[in-house]
């Protein structure tokens, strides 16, 4: 049996399994004996108002959260981050993994009763790259190298030339320029959801309004008041509606964690946030409602390697070594964060990053090495290293920056001036390379190491870091069945060149009422589907 056949049979088996056991894996999995509440309503804080509900244009977390309830892509994400069947029952690939064929379920329907077909995916994906749509996330289709995506975005080819095809109503075929083993993971992202052509053509930019929208997810939009609330109700045409429990979902765009906590306490939220500096007090008050889980995000400092003194690797290494990450995670962020010595978080799927050598040293050894490196680079008490540390205005970033500048000062002759800028100014400064060292953070777009390592995989990064070996490694990793070796080498190079200083891996810190069941708070990307949730009777 060749590889494709084997894969096909495995997928067929899993597809059959998925169909026959659909209720167990694809919807609310209510444990036997659980008494459900009469009123099945779920109210959650969404952190901010989404910029759009148009899946092809969504770029932020708030929008993506909502899109997962309103729409469904080819694949969904399981609680642990693995992909699982969505509108597609499964997929097959050709011998070299460049053609993916998705087999669509025949009972998937839009909220107006229309069947969800392969043509809806063709339209949606073409729309995402069409310059007329002007989607800020169109580059997401370029990452896996779907044929002609880049040329269409650049206006050199027509959207109809995108490498996607409806073989028939229920067979959707995607052609990639190069094999991407993790492509199936990417189709859980909103950009690659289907789109209902008739609705979009009839209403233009207003198609996402409650009166116009047609959805294919478990819910449909019934009310949207910007900056107040968004209400969704069950989509009775959803193929697995019978296994969905929650009837009404309300998303509140509460930006201030203090307001979120106030409304949670007033029992107006089932899921909320709180100012993390209140953790100690809240642990005593409502410890069993606090959930802290690792997230697929890394906090780091980026250095402008073209600018002296950061063009000297010894300086970069010295600064990285002298940071005591344990103090930061235990005493400053103090909500379960993990010290980071590499760019890729530990929880990344299918890749366990090897810790670099300096992670195994004690802080005293690291400080000693740091002082030696800086002395070697020519800095001394009479000639200290002077620099500006840039961060975007926030109390949290400020505390970390103060601690780190003190750690540097204590370990070696370094004088740091802190500089904060509001978000867009900071982005612009970083973007133009007008900084020496700056705070940065990144959360994965999909659960695979390349979403992190690719940040430095071309010369096009804010720190202007270029290493040809690194670039080649990341390029060849794209088509490898198991790219772990490449990723580990890439991380090794980062520890050798130290263009960035990894500081910690983020955690998600949430409040969840005890009455809520099935909420996948531990999904590494925070990808939760409300159709998995149920409300228990008190």
């Amino acid at each position, binding site marked *: 049996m060749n590889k494709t056949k084997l894969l096909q049979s495995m997928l067929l088996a899993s597809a059959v399994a998925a169909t026959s056991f659909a209720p167990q894996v694809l919807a609310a999995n209510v444990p036997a004996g659980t008494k459900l509440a009469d009123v099945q309503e779920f109210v959650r804080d969404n952190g901010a108002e989404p910029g759009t509900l148009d899946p092809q244009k969504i770029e932020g977390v708030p929008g993506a959260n909502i899109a997962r309830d309103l729409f469904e892509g080819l694949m969904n994400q399981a609680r642990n981050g693995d992909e699982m069947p969505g509108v597609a029952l499964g997929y097959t690939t050709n011998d070299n993994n460049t053609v993916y064929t998705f087999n669509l379920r025949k009972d998937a329907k839009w909220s107006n009763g229309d069947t969800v077909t392969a043509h809806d995916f063709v339209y949606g994906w073409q729309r995402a790259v069409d310059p007329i749509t002007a989607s800020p996330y169109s580059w997401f289709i370029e990452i896996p190298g779907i044929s002609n995506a880049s040329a269409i975005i650049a206006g050199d080819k027509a959207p109809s030339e995108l490498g996607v095809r409806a073989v028939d109503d229920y067979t959707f075929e995607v052609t990639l320029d190069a094999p991407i083993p993790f492509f199936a993971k990417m189709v859980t992202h909103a950009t690659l959801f289907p789109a209902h052509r008739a609705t979009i053509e009839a209403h233009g*930019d207003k198609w996402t309004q409650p009166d116009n929208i047609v959805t294919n997810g478990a819910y449909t939009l019934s009310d949207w008041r910007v900056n107040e609330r968004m209400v969704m109700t069950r989509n009775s045409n959803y193929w697995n509606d019978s296994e969905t429990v929650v009837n009404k979902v309300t998303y509140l765009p509460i930006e*201030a964690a203090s307001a979120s906590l106030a409304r949670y306490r007033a029992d*107006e939220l089932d899921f909320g946030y709180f100012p993390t500096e209140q953790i100690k007090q809240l642990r005593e008050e409502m410890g069993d409602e606090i959930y802290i889980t690792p997230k697929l995000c890394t906090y780091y400092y980026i250095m402008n390697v073209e600018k002296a003194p950061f063009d000297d690797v010894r300086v970069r290494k010295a600064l990285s070594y002298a940071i005591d990450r344990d103090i930061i995670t235990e005493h400053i962020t103090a909500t379960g964060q993990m010290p980071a010595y590499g760019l890729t978080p530990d929880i990344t799927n299918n890749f366990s990053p090897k810790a670099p050598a300096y992670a195994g040293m004690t802080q005293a050894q690291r400080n000693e090495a740091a002082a030696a490196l800086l002395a070697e680079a020519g800095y001394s008490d009479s000639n200290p290293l002077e620099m500006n540390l840039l961060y975007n205005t926030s109390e949290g970033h400020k505390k970390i920056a103060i601690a780190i500048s003190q750690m540097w000062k204590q370990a070696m002759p370094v004088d740091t001036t802190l500089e904060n800028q509001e978000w867009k100014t900071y982005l612009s400064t970083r973007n133009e390379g007008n900084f020496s060292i700056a705070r940065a953070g990144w959360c994965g777009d999909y659960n695979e190491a390349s979403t992190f390592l690719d940040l430095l995989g071309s010369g096009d990064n804010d720190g202007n870091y270029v290493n040809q070996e690194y670039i080649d490694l990341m390029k060849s990793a794209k088509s490898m069945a198991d790219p772990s070796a490449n990723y580990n080498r890439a991380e090794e190079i980062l520890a050798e060149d130290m263009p960035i200083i990894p500081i910690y891996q983020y955690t998600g810190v949430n409040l969840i009422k005890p009455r809520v069941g099935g909420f996948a708070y531990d999904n590494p990307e925070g990808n939760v589907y409300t159709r998995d949730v149920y409300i228990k009777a008190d």
Partner: protein
Amino acid sequence: MLNFIFRRFLQAIPTLLVLTMLTFALMYMAPGSPFLTEKGMPEEVLANINAKYHLDLPVWEQYLIYLGNLVQGDLGPSFRYLDFSVNDLVWPSLAVSATIGAWSLLIAVTLGITMGMIAALNHNKWMDYTLMTTAMAGIVLPTFVMAPLLVLLLSYKVKLLPAGGWHDGDWQYLVLPVFAMATHLIAQIARITRGSLIEVMSSNFIRTAQAKGLPYRTIILRHAFKPMMLPVVSYLGPLFVGVLTGSVIIDVFFGTGGIGQHFVNGAINRDYSMVMGVTVLVGVMYIAFNAVTDIIYAYIDPKIRY
């Protein structure tokens, strides 16, 4: 009077033109742009977006396009909320803020003036001291302290009122934002009223009225009230617009969906058309209410003629 209104209307045009020009220029001088993100995006993607929103044109041309749309009442597309135009967003949120603001003002004016008058008429007595101490507490407690305090007491400790939301302005949702906003105003108005009435009461025409043996009630209501209101009105005029156009603290803390949040988020997100839209709207309201204040002045102060 009609002549006066017409003149004010004509004066408003150059004022608004300068306002839009300055705002537009300042916004474009601010670093960053609406679609700048942490990861950045490929140049072609950015070029497509810039083309869609005319951001690829020279600034003066963008300004002219904006003015052209503005005179037709079109405030342009929002760069932050891609599914909405600025018109779609500002009108409903202005209605929310104006409702909260109008109730706050009504309560503040009624209670503030009453408290101020009682204090003034009991000048240097215990009533005066009690009321003014209370007012001082109201002044030093800003909205961002009042709002969480009210929620803590009335939504959390005693589950009497909702901690946030709007729900089309149902009264339960209105009470806390209105009181959080009004407290400070009540206190200010009470202090101004008190000061003003004490001064008026010692003026010659009041002494004359007293000498004529007029009843106390008549002296206060017919002779002292109008001149007492002069400083109150000049305080309320500009305040009126500020209160009606909302408070970002109220919007953020109570999640009401008012217009204050659009103003601040518009600037933070470089949502150029939103910032312009709200500025123009607030500008027009300021001009209109200043004119209204002037008209009220003419009514209560016989020395003023237009």
